[in-house]
């Protein structure tokens, strides 16, 4: 993992996104530093996926500024996408290809190549069982798909990871594996943004947690001490957000 100079991998300032009359993001500001895991918590319709779209350059902001690794996704979506690995809730892979072929193909799409040894190392690093490497992905579980996608992120040397609802639908064992993997990536200097409504899951690994409420960050909490977060306070806070 390459780290970002200046520490700020994702910077969002005063971001406003409107769909017609509806204002979805209302002067949203947040930043994620290299080697940091940021948990963005929000209920349905709070603006989580719009925030992701803006970071990925799929929508034009009405006002404000987004910067990813110093690049503006609105003007240089391709550049931004090269530095980001986005792992959606349900990782889409080509069902007619094997895990290896999928990773190879997606690397080629970005103009990259990986030799066999590198690929094996990545698969091993994410904990994908070896028998699955050359198997068609049509039988893959959600967790296996996620691991394939993260293996791809490793090979792409992405410095920014966007994780969209990563732990929903994973069994506890798989969740623990996933958290371990995220911690390792953080240790290697990646900036990681986890967008979720899974309070407990994100509290385990996030360094900071932001509450997204009606298009803006209504509160932010920082992990402190061995207990990291006061779970009760988090829960109260999140209930209020959801009620609102």
């Amino acid at each position, binding site marked *: 993992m390459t780290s970002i100079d200046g520490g700020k991998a994702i910077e969002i300032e005063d971001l406003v996104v409107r769909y017609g009359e509806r204002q979805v993001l209302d002067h949203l500001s947040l930043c994620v530093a290299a080697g940091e895991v940021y948990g963005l918590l929000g209920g349905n319709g709070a603006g989580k996926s719009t925030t992701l*779209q803006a970071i*990925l*350059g*799929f*929508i*034009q902001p009405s006002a404000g500024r987004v910067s990813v690794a110093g690049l503006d996704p609105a003007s240089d*979506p*391709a550049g931004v*996408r*090269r530095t*980001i690995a*986005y792992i*959606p809730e*349900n*990782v*889409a*892979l*080509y*069902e*007619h*290809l094997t895990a290896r072929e999928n990773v190879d*193909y*997606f*690397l*080629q*799409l*970005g*103009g990259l190549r990986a030799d066999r040894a590198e690929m094996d190392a990545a698969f091993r690093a994410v904990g994908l069982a070896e028998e699955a490497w050359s198997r068609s992905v049509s039988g893959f579980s959600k967790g296996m798909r996620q691991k394939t996608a993260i293996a*791809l992120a490793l090979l*792409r040397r992405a410095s920014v990871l966007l994780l969209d609802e990563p732990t929903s639908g994973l069994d506890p064992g798989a969740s623990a594996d996933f958290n371990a993997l995220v911690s390792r990536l953080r240790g290697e200097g990646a900036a990681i943004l986890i967008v979720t409504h899974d309070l407990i899951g994100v509290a385990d690994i996030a360094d900071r947690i932001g509450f997204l409420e009606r298009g803006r960050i209504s509160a932010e909490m920082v992990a402190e001490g061995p207990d990291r977060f006061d779970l009760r306070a988090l829960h109260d806070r999140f209930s209020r957000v959801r009620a609102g």
Partner: protein
Amino acid sequence: MSVMISVARNALRHLLRSRIALTGVVLVALLTLAAAVTSRAYQADQAGLRDRLQHAADQDFAAQPNRHPHRVVHFGHFAIRPASGLAAMDPGVEAFTGNMIFLEGHRQNSANFGDARQSSLLVRFGQLSPALVLQVIAPLLLVFIGAGMVAGERERGTLRQSLLAGVSGGTLLGGKALALGFAGLIISAPAFGLLLWVGVNGGARASAVALSALGYVAYLAFWTLLIVAVSAMVQRSRTALIALVGAWAFSVVLVPRLAPEVAAGLAPLPTRVETDIAVQRDLRAMGDSHNPNDPYFAAFKQKTLKQYGVSRVEDLPVNYRGLLAIEGEKLTSSLFDRYADQAFGAMAAQGRVMDALAVVSPTIAIRRLSMTLAETDLSAYRRFLEQAEAYRYDLVQRLNRLQATAVTAEDDAAKSKSAAAESRSRISADHWRSMPHFAPDRPSAGEVTGRALPSLIVLLLWLAAGALLAARAGRRLNRSAA
């Protein structure tokens, strides 16, 4: 470029593993092959038959015994339309035109025994030819296998994943178009093979083969780009499929059928019966050869007498009946030409109206291009009719001149009363054997190319429009929420 090829390879791999698409491609490729083989065999058979019939007609003509030249004018000759080399690729209007004309004096007969008249109604469903497969069926198959190419990936989520992997929308669509275009090439390979074969074996000119191939490639490339663009612009494969099948039905099936209705209303054609009656009426108005006091023929007589410096018809050194026949043929032929020009003028006007509809249907442009290059279009047919008419006129006038010079006026006058005079009025059969044969010449390569050029330009414009649309769809893809 290498990224585009990766995309294309992946799309082709997907196609290969989808049994329906693969079956479709293989079946249509086989259909093209069957069309090429049967069409080629039919055309070869027709060419042989027509050759034989023309030869038989030439022999019949030459085998006439000693005859009065006017008998030969009525015995007449047959002109049979030779088959064109590229007709195997695109039979065009071949089935809807007659192929044999009876050439005789004072009359202009129609070309008869066209295939459409003697075929069942099935001919109206379209004739199986490589042109039909490439113009009509290939685009529909491409629609089937291509409608879901991007929209399907959008539904499955891999589109977003691909875009996030760093590929640009344009490159992605380019790769998909390459894959679809490759499938199109597989489908049409037998037709291109036929084109090449006809070109190499001398049945067609290299320029026509090359332009025809270029036209079909442009046509299929247009469909490829349109399909990929539409697939990228809509949310669901089903929507893409319905929109594209609709576009296909409109521009491939509907517009070409509506075009003649529009054209027929704008430039109506006379019937043959009306033309015949009008020719007779105009002839009577010019001069009545049955009336001894007719002013036109009286003037002609005076002119002739003066030319030969004599005062009586009997003193002419030539047979006056022959001169009259020459003059009469000149009159009737000028009328035939005038009415034929009118009719062809109206048809050309209809053709222009129909061609103008190429702005809403590229199929009209490729059909025009293909027929023109195959020399199976209206203008090739018109050329045949005009050459047959020129040959008829020349033949009849040669015979009339023989009547004027080789048959004495006395024998000619007495032939229907006295057997001896009749026998003397017959001239040697050697004359028939020395008459020229009907040898229609083909339009020059430059002429054909010149006529094909406008439709080729229209096709290239369609291709450019398809490319622009695909480029726009590609740019939108970069920004779309996928």
